[in-house]
């Protein structure tokens, strides 16, 4: 069969068109519904926040040296108890007023406020500096609910986030944390960390995604920790915030912390 140039170009052009359509057909052929999905019980919120009612907390602490939230959090997440303060790992911890609120602390503040410990944790900032500085996106802000998350798999241990966080909410594993965990107390359903990664509070993303409240909130018998969606006007958190004057830590830095303190 005789073929001239015009014929050859026609066939060639059609063939190229056909080849370019191939990936589209393949993609269409593979669509058999979603093969994964979120847990239907997962809590839904646009920006999780926490209110820490220090009055209630102090009342309980006076009664019985209460550290229920810290113990519950650290047990749930296999956080090691390292005595050396330079190497300690903390997700939720106690701190003095002047260190918690250095920008507003003054010497004439009520004696009780000055002397009582404050419960601190990651603020899950609206504009988190740790996320901006992380070179591997190991720490990231969840688009759906605003949790500042850690993907421990991706962390390379550069500690930029620790320099970036103005709240000291991040801890670095200088060594293997496992020797500091009591074997009988290890939570077998949650991993530990390894040497060379940074860790912090994750607002219990693993519990929220299964429809549970954070471990510290559940453990607090004084109901001093209240967790909820701050963008929802009907949430308990918003009701408390509209009824009481609240404090946030280092607001002038523009990080938009989402942990509120009532005194």
């Amino acid at each position, binding site marked *: 069969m005789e073929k001239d140039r015009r014929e050859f170009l026609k066939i060639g052009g059609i063939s190229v068109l056909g080849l370019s359509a191939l990936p589209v057909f393949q993609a269409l052929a593979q669509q058999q519904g979603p093969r994964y999905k979120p847990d239907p019980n997962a809590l839904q919120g646009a920006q999780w926040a926490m209110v820490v009612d220090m009055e209630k907390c102090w009342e309980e602490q006076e009664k019985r040296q209460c550290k229920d939230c810290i113990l519950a959090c650290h047990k749930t997440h296999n956080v090691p108890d390292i005595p050396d303060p330079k190497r300690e790992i903390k997700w939720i911890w106690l701190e003095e007023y002047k260190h918690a609120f250095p920008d507003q602390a003054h010497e004439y503040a009520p004696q009780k406020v000055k002397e009582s410990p404050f419960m601190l944790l990651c603020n899950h900032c609206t504009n988190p500096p740790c996320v901006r500085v992380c070179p591997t996106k190991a720490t990231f802000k969840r688009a759906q609910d605003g949790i500042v998350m850690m993907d421990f798999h991706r962390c390379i241990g550069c500690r930029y986030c620790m320099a970036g966080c103005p709240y000291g909410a991040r801890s670095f594993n200088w060594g293997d944390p496992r020797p500091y965990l009591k074997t009988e107390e290890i939570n*077998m359903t949650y991993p530990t960390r390894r040497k060379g990664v940074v860790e912090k509070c994750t607002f219990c993303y693993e519990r929220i995604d299964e429809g549970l409240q954070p471990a510290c909130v559940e453990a607090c018998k004084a109901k001093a920790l209240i967790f909820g969606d701050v963008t929802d006007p009907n949430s308990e958190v918003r009701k408390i915030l509209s009824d009481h004057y609240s404090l946030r830590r280092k607001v002038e830095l523009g990080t938009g912390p989402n942990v509120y303190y009532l005194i």
Partner: protein
Amino acid sequence: MYDAKKIVPGILIFVVLFTFPLWSNLGKAAPAPKPELPTTEKVCVMDTAYMKTEHMVLLNQWRDLVVRDANRLWVGPDGREHFMSLQNSCMKCHSSKVKFCDQCHTYAGVTPYCWQCHIEPKENM
């Protein structure tokens, strides 16, 4: 050839030493790994052939789906839903790391670092 007395035995010694692993293991095939399959369940999240060759790909995919995109449930080819978790799902059926994971990993000489963080089930042997 100069120094043939030294060179020839030298080459011979080199060849013998270099091929030592080959002839010392001649005829002795290492036994094929026998990972112990769970008795409680018949089907895995995907078919056996896929799991044999691609389980590490699937685990990586699961990790991203869970940690980064907040998905929790995996719908298998048979429509069954599985909770996506190495520690809480895989190891529930494959309850012995030594008898399952390590069998092939040791044979193939790979040391996955999953277990530096994820806790293996307590072995009762």
